[in-house]
């Protein structure tokens, strides 16, 4: 694969310090027909950057994200978040995870809890078990949670149960939950794949605002090129577990897209493009 030289993107962010640094990370899923999900992936992401990781289904986008907060254990390589190496030692890992919010394709709200309780669960890592045992949070936590809900215009649904919301609303609450962690990084794993285009744009706009206004680094997995072109400042193209492009979204040429989506080898695989 011809690798584009890593290029930093918009002016102004060039001088920002590195927030997430992925070095030579590989992941092979064990088991029958062991699959190589990631092959020597290296990326540097700066503070406050809005980065889109683009690639077809099965390219390893999700695995890469899960390696960053260790929901998946990489086979080799190292990841540094905000100057701290991500390890699997529980206490240190929890400290890293507290700084890294995550947003999922399936929203993953705890359906039977209220919207407020879901957002408050973003505060759990700040508390000891004894407090959580009685499902109690202090006033400051509640203020933070409601503020985060207001940021995604969901404060009017504070007391509703999560499973009564529509998909787009659930994803906004999920963003609020990630924000309630007061994170330095947000990982959004295909956050709009199960939403219609109008709602999808709304959600992406919120995510982009967050990066801009709060200075949170946002890594966003997408498989749709048009959204990447519309929202990304910088795009990392992932194909079959390897980085095949790293540069500003303006430089996403047809040639490069062909490489990402390997249209030449597998016909009929390009409906998303």
């Amino acid at each position, binding site marked *: 694969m011809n690798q584009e030289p890593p290029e930093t993107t918009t002016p102004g962010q060039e001088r920002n310090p590195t927030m997430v640094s992925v070095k030579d990370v590989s992941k092979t899923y064990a088991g029958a027909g062991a699959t190589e999900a990631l092959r020597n992936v290296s990326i540097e992401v700066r503070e406050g950057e809005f980065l889109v990781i683009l690639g077809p289904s099965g390219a390893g986008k999700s695995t890469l994200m899960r390696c960053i*907060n260790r*929901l998946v254990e990489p086979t080799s390589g190292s990841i540094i978040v905000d100057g701290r190496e991500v390890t699997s030692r529980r206490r240190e890992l*929890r*400290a*890293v*995870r*507290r*700084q*890294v*919010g*995550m947003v*999922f394709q*399936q929203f*993953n*709200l*705890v*359906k*039977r*809890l209220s919207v407020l*309780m879901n957002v408050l*669960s*973003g505060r*759990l*890592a700040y*508390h000891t*078990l004894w407090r*959580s*045992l009685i*499902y109690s949070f202090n006033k400051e936590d509640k203020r933070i949670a409601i503020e985060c809900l207001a940021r995604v215009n969901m404060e009017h649904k504070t007391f509703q149960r999560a499973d009564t919301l529509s998909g787009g609303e659930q994803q906004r609450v*999920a963003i609020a*939950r990630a924000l309630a*962690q007061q994170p330095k990084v947000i*990982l959004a794993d295909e956050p709009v794949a199960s939403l219609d285009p109008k709602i999808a744009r709304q959600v992406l706009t919120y995510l982009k605002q967050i990066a801009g206004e709060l200075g949170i680094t946002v890594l966003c997995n997408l498989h749709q090129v048009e959204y990447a072109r519309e929202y990304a400042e910088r795009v990392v193209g992932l194909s079959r577990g390897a980085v095949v492009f790293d540069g500003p979204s303006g430089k996403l040429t047809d040639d490069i897209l062909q490489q990402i989506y390997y249209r030449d080898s597998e016909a009929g695989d390009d409906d998303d493009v």
Partner: protein
Amino acid sequence: MTMTFERDVAATLQMEAAHRQRRFAKGLGWGGLTVAVLWFTADQIGMNPLALIKGADHMWDFLTRMFPPDLSYIFFLGRATVETVQIAVWGTLLAVVFSIPLSLLAARNTTPLVMLPWFTETWQRLSLHLLVFHLTRLLLNMLRGINELIFALIFVSAVGLGPFAGVLAIALHATGMLAKFCGEEIEGVDQGQIEAVQATGASKMQVILFAVIPQVIPAFISYSIFRFDVSIRSATVLGLVGAGGLGFSLIKTMKLFKYYETATCILVIFLLVAGADWICSKWRAKVI
């Protein structure tokens, strides 16, 4: 193109016919074997419809001695009826309390893993890191496998005749049932919700509190109510071995050949069980 296409369809059709014939032959074989085994079994355990017909007049005799029931005896059964319900309430309540921690230990995704620094891989292959899980399951299987009446016999000799032995018997058996059921429910929870709370940096216990328990609580409550219903039924017979409740009145009147009163006991048991069933089904419908 069309030629090969038609040939392919014909070949698959032929395969389907062969497949069907094989299945039929197999079904015939297993069916025949099942019938043979059942016939042999019926013979072994002396299932004989003639005996039932011949014994009909004995049964009739027994029934006529019970009829008409002595309804005035109901007034003496009040205390025993209340006691039956009390045994069921406390037995189930204790089972609910015991089964909360036990069900967490009895689910693969919440049980504490035993990780020793040596031979980790061998340990994992033998799934010995699930030691706590396996031991808990073993305990629950023992609790479930032993009938309440047997537990009651043991506890009567331990704490003496009376309802407390019944409470303990029901509590142990129901704990086995509830914790196993709830453990399986915990294993079936949505992994996505767990991952989301994990990703916030929550500890293992916090994940259980905020992602696991909310998911299993409706099933747990519903099953606890069902268990209460079953416990009432069990509590009506525990008295047969001296562990309190209506069963004790039943066996007492029978031993004294007061069959009119026995009939009243059976009537009250029937009403109690039917009432509990009705109330519990309403209650469960409300929870779900």
